[in-house]
């Protein structure tokens, strides 16, 4: 029973975490599919009528084709890329703004804190969906993937900001922050090297969660016909299938593909985030 390993293993490997391994592997499959494989698409996934319509899955078209003459597989690959992009943009912008606002408010205190928190609370109090719809109007012209991500990010920073602020408030009291000050560290260095690393585990989990939420929000906008409908995303994939009554007309591969992809993508992100959190928690203790 005794472990024979003589070497001390100080760092517990993240690869020992089953959830993370499963989630991350799935996620990598999606990333490879979306960001690498999708570039080899033989057809422009946005174009209509590049392949014969309404074919069930076959070797030539692994996930069948749609009534619009698109190949479901290649559309899906592109859709995964775009959905991930929307999620990334929203998560990066939302996360960056949230962390910045939260840390600034938490460490400045006083008037700055009050003003920032009032703004933050405003974004929490205002219902997001109607404003998103209105903003979709405002960004007239090109509702590109980027713009969509940005629009969604407008409401993705407020909660993180609040949480980061709470964390900053408690971090402010930590001894090692004082220690860094008394070691003559510059304030910006304290921010980046002392405080930020401690917010990172949370930031990563929040980041993944934000990606998840943004992808879901895009899908909601899509079902209302407010997404970038001519782009390929998971949301528009579902939108078109619904528009063309894929369920009723027995074109199950058309509707099932984006839905299943979405579920797997979510599960992979969820597991990655959970695994990461568990791992970081075990490292801290």
């Amino acid at each position, binding site marked *: *029973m*005794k*472990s*024979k390993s*003589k*070497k*001390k*293993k100080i760092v*517990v490997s993240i690869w*020992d975490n089953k959830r993370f391994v499963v989630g991350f592997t799935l996620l990598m499959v999606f990333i490879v599919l979306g960001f690498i494989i999708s570039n080899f698409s033989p057809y422009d996934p946005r174009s209509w009528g590049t392949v014969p319509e309404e074919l069930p899955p076959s070797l030539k078209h692994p996930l069948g084709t749609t009534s619009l003459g698109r190949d479901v597989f290649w559309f899906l690959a592109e859709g995964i890329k775009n959905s991930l992009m929307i999620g990334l943009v929203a998560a990066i912008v939302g996360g960056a703004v949230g962390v910045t606002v939260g840390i600034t408010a938490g460490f400045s205190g006083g008037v700055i804190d009050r003003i920032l928190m009032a703004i933050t609370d405003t974004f929490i109090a205002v219902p997001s969906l109607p404003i998103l719809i209105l903003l979709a109007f405002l960004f007239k012209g090109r509702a590109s993937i980027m713009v969509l991500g940005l629009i969604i990010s407008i409401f993705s920073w407020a909660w993180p900001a609040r949480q980061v602020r709470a964390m900053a408030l408690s971090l402010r009291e930590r001894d090692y922050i004082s220690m860094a000050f008394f070691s003559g560290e510059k304030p910006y260095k304290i921010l980046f090297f002392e405080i930020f690393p401690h917010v990172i585990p949370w930031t990563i989990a929040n980041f993944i969660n934000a990606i998840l939420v943004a992808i879901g929000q895009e899908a909601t906008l899509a079902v209302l016909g407010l997404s970038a409908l001519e782009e390929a995303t998971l949301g528009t994939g579902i939108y078109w299938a619904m528009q063309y009554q894929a369920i009723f007309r027995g074109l199950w591969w058309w509707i099932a593909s984006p839905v299943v992809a979405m579920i797997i993508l979510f599960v992979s992100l969820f597991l990655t985030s959970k695994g990461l959190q568990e791992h970081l928690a075990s490292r801290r203790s």
Partner: protein
Amino acid sequence: MAEKLLEINHAQIYYATLAGYVKAVDNVNFDINEGEIVGLAGESGCGKSTLIKSIYGFIKYPMKAISGEINLLTNGNKLNMLFVEKEELRKVRWKYISYVPQASLHVLNPVTRIKKQFLESVKREHNVKEKEAMDEVKEYLKSLGLPPDVLDSFPHQLSGGMQQRVIIAMATFLKPRIVLADEPTTALDVVVQRGILQMLRDIQKELKNSLIIVSHDMGVHYQITHKIVIMYAGKIAEIGPTDEIFNNPYHPYTRLLINSLPRIGDREQRSGIEGSPPNLLNPPEGCRFNPRCPSKMKICEEKIPEMVEISKGHFVACHLFQKNGKRVKEDAE
């Protein structure tokens, strides 16, 4: 002759880590008799908390009982607390043996009033109506000098000392034969600490049971225990009556430890023990104290010293002492 309540034979309790087992308690033996106050002393990581948890059968992953026995002797029954069914354990807990955890503000359920927390373990045993049980509880608290209105409070409304006293009251209400107290006063103020120790001692006097106290503070042991078990790195270094340990310590570790304690009114230069306790993943061969021991001999690195009884009830595990209690060599003082 006082009745034996607990016997510990070759207890081995390890912690499972990814790097291997941490041998927190390694081959420990001693008995506890009725009416005794026993102190478990030692530095952090010496295994005293592990041992006392094991006595209570509170063994949770990554803690693991490897072998040996810790027998709870109740009315002629033996119950090996190291390997016991959950149900069996539940039956003896709080009734025959109680556990007072380290003083902390997180021991009591923060969202439930003390009253309920008191009753939930009591009612099961007494099988009486809540009102009657309450009266009894109030009476008991009074006898311990606690105001009965604490029962209506939430834990956070009480000071740490008061919470600890409530916990002790809970743990002793059913008159258990053995009370285990794991660092019961750490982090409490000295005045409160004294009060709590007195309380534990008074209860013990009243119930004539045995009390085992774990503490890293030698002063605590000096003040209330009858017998001290000095642990070092998962093993017992020395066991003996309290006064003898303080006046005439045998084991070099005990001696250095006691010498290092500052005394008020005595400004004499004192020094600590050099080095630090070993890593229990890979403890040193032989005597585990040998890397820090000023009287180290060759044998100390080779052979694990056995426990020898030097005088009645005074045992030591050190190669300096032979079976007959004679000193092998005089070490440089």
